């Protein structure tokens, strides 16, 4: 096994490191931790955080790429690695991608979607829906399938419930230990929502997730739960692989544009004068180019570049990865202007505030005023826009990939899934499962991102809190 750090892998893990660092830093500072505590009190916020966490787990296991060791290498000889790069997720899901059918098959089907000419043992030739190579192979009698599915689902529910119960019990015990109360007291507090964190929402979401994931996992052992696509690949596998693409686009894009937006926005608002004029000019100009067209033009140009310099991209995976990174950058270029404008306005307001005037009365230098006084006081805006942009970017990826200016066609993403499937809308009976899987996964991800963003905004936006404080302080 030889690690292949893709560009996006490196950045994703860097992001994880940054988040962890921020969490540790904020944890020790009450004014930074306070809004997060408000988030943790929100049921919707915590429930969506759990869902996002599950998606993130899928995405992160899919962000460790390596060349697997080829089997059959002799002992003592130097190891030979496969040329293809695989991810940890691929290895975990080997049963899914290795059992490829010939072409379409419906969810949980045991026969193919299309007729084939089959030669019967007697030499007779007939057109029929052949049995799938893998889907439902273990069911000898076709009539047994429904029973088998139901039994598997029931088994899965039981396992799921048990796993959840174990996890919940351990968790409550740990919490009780930390708080130095008995387990019963802790459980009662959680049920009565007396805890700082909305644990009840966490547990309910985990229960729902367990009751969905385990049956699907068990079923996936014997069937194609979401069917197969045109070339017989398991749709569940494709959908799970798409999660990483969505997460990368949703997070790295904002991460890449963040330094520009923050630096330029604050500089424009604080320094004013010609700096402000130039920065405003730059972002109005960029903003005036229709976003999709700018992306289209840039991606087309990128494609030209890749095609004319094939020697720089050894593997298809690396090429697709660089295109993804480039897409993030160009999306960043088109989206930073909004945040920069917000920050400029905020910096304009802040520079007149008395604590900044006081700093100037000490002769504190501009760079220091920006880093010590302005930056920390606009971070909540940055954070809010970071989480708000996420869902927009995930949805945009699908549209762009559909137009053909999104990710590389060989890369799994919700957009390419939809794009490949929509041509089959006209077939009868309709091939609906690929679309359903893509839209379903995307909906759950985007919905939880939206809910989480709402919780974060409510907790961080001073206007919301000022409203409450005014109501409390009125009199």
């Amino acid at each position, binding site marked *: 096994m030889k690690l292949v750090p893709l560009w996006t892998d490196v950045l994703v893990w860097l992001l994880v490191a940054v988040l962890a660092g921020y969490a540790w830093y904020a944890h020790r500072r009450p004014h930074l931790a306070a809004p997060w505590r408000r988030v943790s009190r929100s049921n919707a916020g915590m429930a969506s955080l759990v869902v996002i966490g599950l998606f993130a787990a899928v995405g992160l296991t899919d962000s460790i790429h390596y060349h697997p060791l080829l089997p059959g290498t002799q002992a003592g000889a130097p190891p030979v690695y496969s040329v293809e790069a695989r991810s940890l997720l691929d290895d975990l899901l080997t049963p899914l991608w290795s059992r490829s059918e010939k072409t379409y098959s419906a969810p949980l089907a045991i026969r193919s979607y299309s007729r084939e000419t089959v030669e019967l043992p007697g030499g007779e030739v007939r057109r029929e829906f052949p049995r799938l190579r893998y889907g439902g192979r273990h069911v000898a009698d076709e009539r047994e399938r429904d029973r088998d599915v139901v039994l598997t689902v029931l088994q899965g529910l039981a396992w799921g419930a048990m796993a959840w119960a174990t996890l919940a019990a351990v968790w409550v015990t740990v919490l009780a230990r930390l708080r130095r109360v008995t387990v019963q007291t802790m459980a009662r507090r959680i049920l009565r929502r007396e805890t700082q964190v909305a644990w009840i929402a966490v547990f309910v979401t985990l229960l729902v997730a367990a009751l969905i994931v385990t049956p699907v996992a068990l079923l996936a052992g014997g069937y194609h739960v979401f069917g197969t696509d045109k070339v017989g690949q398991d749709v569940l596998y494709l959908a799970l692989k798409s999660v990483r693409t969505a997460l990368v686009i949703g997070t790295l894009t904002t991460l890449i544009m963040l330094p520009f937006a923050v630096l330029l926005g604050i500089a424009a608002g604080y320094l004013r004068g010609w700096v402000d004029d130039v920065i405003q000019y730059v972002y109005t100009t960029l903003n005036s180019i229709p976003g999709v067209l700018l992306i289209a033009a840039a991606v087309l140009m990128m494609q030209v570049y890749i095609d004319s310099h094939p020697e720089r991209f050894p593997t298809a995976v690396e090429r697709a990865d660089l295109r993804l990174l480039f897409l993030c950058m160009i999306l960043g270029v088109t989206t930073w202007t909004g945040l920069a404008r917000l920050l400029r306005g905020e910096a304009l307001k802040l520079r007149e505030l008395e604590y900044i005037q006081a700093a100037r009365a000490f002769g504190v230098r501009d760079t220091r005023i920006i880093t010590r006084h302005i930056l920390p006081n606009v971070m909540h805006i940055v954070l809010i826009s970071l989480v708000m942009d996420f869902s927009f970017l995930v*949805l945009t990826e699908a549209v762009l990939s559909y137009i053909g200016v999104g990710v590389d066609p060989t890369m799994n993403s919700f957009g390419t899934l939809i794009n490949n499937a929509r041509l089959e809308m006209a077939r009868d009976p309709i091939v609906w499962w690929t679309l359903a899987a893509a839209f379903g996964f995307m909906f759950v991800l985007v*919905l939880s991102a939206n809910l989480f963003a709402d919780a974060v905004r409510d907790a961080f936006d001073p206007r919301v809190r000022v409203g409450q404080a005014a109501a409390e302080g009125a009199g």
Partner: protein
Amino acid sequence: MIAYITRRFLYAIPILIGVNVITFALFFVVNTPEDMANLALGAKRVTPEAVERWKAERGYDKPLFVNAEADGAARLTDTIFFQKSIRLFVFDFGNADDGRNIGHEIRTRMWPSLALAIPVFLIGLAVNITFALMLAFFRATYIDFWGVVVCVAMMSISTLFYIIGGQYLVSKTWSLVPISGYAPGIDAAKFLILPVVVGVAGGIGSGSRWYRTIFLEEINRDYVRTARAKGLSELTVLFRHVLKNAMIPILTGAVVVIPTLFMGSLITESFFGIPGLGSYVIDAIQAQDFAVVRSMVFLGSVLYILGLLLTDLSYTLVDPRVRFE
């Protein structure tokens, strides 16, 4: 005020120049015309002659900025930069790869685009404002709560789903309207109903939620308390006082998109086979027709800047504070 508007107009010029430079850099500097020719002709059949011919057909065989071989003004005019970028300022877009005149295409295709975009814009605005007003009226009740939940759910659904779902349900299953296509004149209606409904539905979630926040912000202001202290009913307060103030950000936010309605909707048009500018762009992108994409980038920028100008103007119309400055 006239000085103000004139200044805004003059401000647009450097921006357009900026857009022009960016697109030029993107199309001709990042990759040379040779690269584009290689790509267009396919890797296998590339001969230097074919590349030269391809470039000559499109006028890409000239130097980028300075033509050392030409004399006088032609030193600057007989260049790619002048021919391809400066000419855009007089809306001379040149020809597409298929030889058709881009300007002519734009003029014919903008009508179907408008036929779709204007109803979506107006109906969408009306629906969103109505829905948001209702949520604001029932604020802090279950109606408001579930309304917001519906909004969040609706904005979490991909536009593609609305289109595909609508086509499948309305056209395929119920056969109420054709799946796609377009006919000029009054016949267009039956082709447009579904795209319009889909377009409006796709915007309800984010639109209503945004307007609701604007309404709630206004409702918490002091003048609303004054209005209530006068003994006005909640509906009068909402319609005469809150709505009138909230319309300032709503209208000015809407005005900026009016000119860009000409550009049509990329996705909807291409899904429903409407021969507008949106599908023109998509086709051009898929055919890698750089001339068309470049023209549309410039046109889009012009329209956006026009939108900014209209926004400034509309402020002076709806807000007395700006009007009397």
